[in-house]
């Protein structure tokens, strides 16, 4: 395939915040490799992952293409803690009445570039999708969420939602949200929201006045902030594992 021999560039919309040094130095076959997953009609499949890579390598790109059969459910709950560059990409095609649930957290400092990229294809009626992404960054790090939703002409009663919030612990860090909606059906609900802010100073002082150190207050506030991304994860043990990994990554953060 010809696509496999060329590398993406920053001109490609879905790669505009990527670490191009990493991409340029990569084998195109690795960059263009997609894992695939088939969710049979009426069934549920999930992926629950902490992407810590980067401790030993410069980065990682993980791309997954999912097809969800009629009335099926695919859920992905993912935390990116590592990587000078870490990119997690999901392309999900939904059959009639299927659901895609995504909760993602990027958390990191230094000069890390961490991103989630999703393409959700509502090709059939009555399918739903819900995506919640939280980015917590410090140092010179960047956390991004590029979320594209395509609703086909006959995919009536589609209900798609995207919510992104970025929390910057220091000046110099950044967060990007790029929602992209392409809707051809006329009876659909598509909602998206994005905000970027800093830790609430009033809350920090309030917590300090009750005896919590800056570090403890920051940890509690970050825990509350990222919690939204895991609300729809029913497995409590898994939820705790993802939360623990998130808070562990916070320990290297500045105060």
């Amino acid at each position, binding site marked *: 395939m010809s696509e496999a021999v060329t590398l993406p560039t920053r001109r490609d919309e879905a790669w505009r915040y990527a670490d191009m040094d990493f991409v340029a130095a990569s084998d195109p076959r690795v960059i263009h490799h997609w894992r695939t997953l088939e969710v049979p009609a009426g069934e549920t499949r999930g992926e629950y992952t902490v992407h810590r890579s980067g401790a030993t390598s410069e980065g990682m790109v993980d791309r997954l293409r999912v097809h969800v059969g009629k009335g099926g459910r695919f859920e992905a709950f993912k935390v990116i803690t590592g990587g000078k560059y870490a990119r997690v990409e999901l392309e999900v095609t939904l059959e009639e009445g299927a659901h895609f649930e995504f909760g993602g957290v990027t958390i990191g400092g230094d000069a890390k570039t961490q991103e989630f990229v999703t393409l959700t294809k509502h090709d059939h009626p009555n399918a739903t999708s819900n995506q919640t992404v939280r980015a917590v960054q410090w140092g010179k790090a960047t956390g991004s969420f590029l979320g594209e939703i395509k609703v086909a002409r006959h995919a009536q009663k589609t209900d798609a939602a995207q919510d992104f919030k970025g929390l910057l612990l220091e000046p110099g860090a950044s967060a990007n949200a790029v929602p992209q909606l392409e809707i051809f059906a006329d009876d659909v609900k598509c909602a998206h929201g994005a905000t970027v802010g800093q830790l609430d100073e009033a809350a920090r002082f309030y917590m300090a006045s*009750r005896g919590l150190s800056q570090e403890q207050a920051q940890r509690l506030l970050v825990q509350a902030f990222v919690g939204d991304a895991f609300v729809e994860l029913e497995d409590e043990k898994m939820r705790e594992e993802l939360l623990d990994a998130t808070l562990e990554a916070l320990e290297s953060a500045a105060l």
Partner: protein
Amino acid sequence: MLKITDLHATVGEDNPKPILKGLSLEVQAGEVHAIMGPNGAGKSTLANVLGGKPGYDVTSGSVEFAGEDLFDLDPHERAATGLFLGFQYPVEIPGVSNVQFLREALNAQRKFRGEEPLSGGEFLKLAKEKAALLKMDMEMLKRQVNVGFSGGEKKRAEMVQMGILDPKFAVLDETDSGLDIDALRIVGEGINSIMRDSGKGVLLITHYQRLLDVVKPDRVSILADGRIVQTGGPDLALRLEDEGYDAVMAEAAA
């Protein structure tokens, strides 16, 4: 147990504005000391400076608390040393439950003092007891900190926090604002049962006599233009209520 000497403080970083201009005040153990004063006198600034709120600068003077220099301590260390600040506007913390917040806060304080942490069960027992004292439903404590609470509920929650943390000294900044008559009585009685003790002290900042009818102060001071201009017994508050600040202060100056 709290000794404030010639305290000067400013607010604002770029263009600091002097608010406290030589404030001196001493509160003994076992004493409830009410601070009254007109708007803009510096009452809330005093509370914020004692708590260590960012944005306030102490330019001179000292505060000794429980034998320590208060300004040597970070805000969370002041709390662990036994200082409690009751907020005029308690802060909402979405996503954090009262139970989690207060348990972590109490155990952080205990750790600082070299005490063993309370277990989950021990903490819940304590929380239940203090919530009952303020007639607050335990279900409220399971909710997020101050989120969706009415003004009165927030103030009652402040007092539940005070009960759980069991401080040596409380600075209560307009704890009576936003309370209806019933809630005022509950909060006032809560202050009495938690803080009326020979080893404890209270600095009670208020505008109104009505809270002082319940929490009977031992001393009353008038704060005006950044200084204490007059100190007296409980009758001083009554005179203020009848005659107003201007008349009482004019008389004192004469």
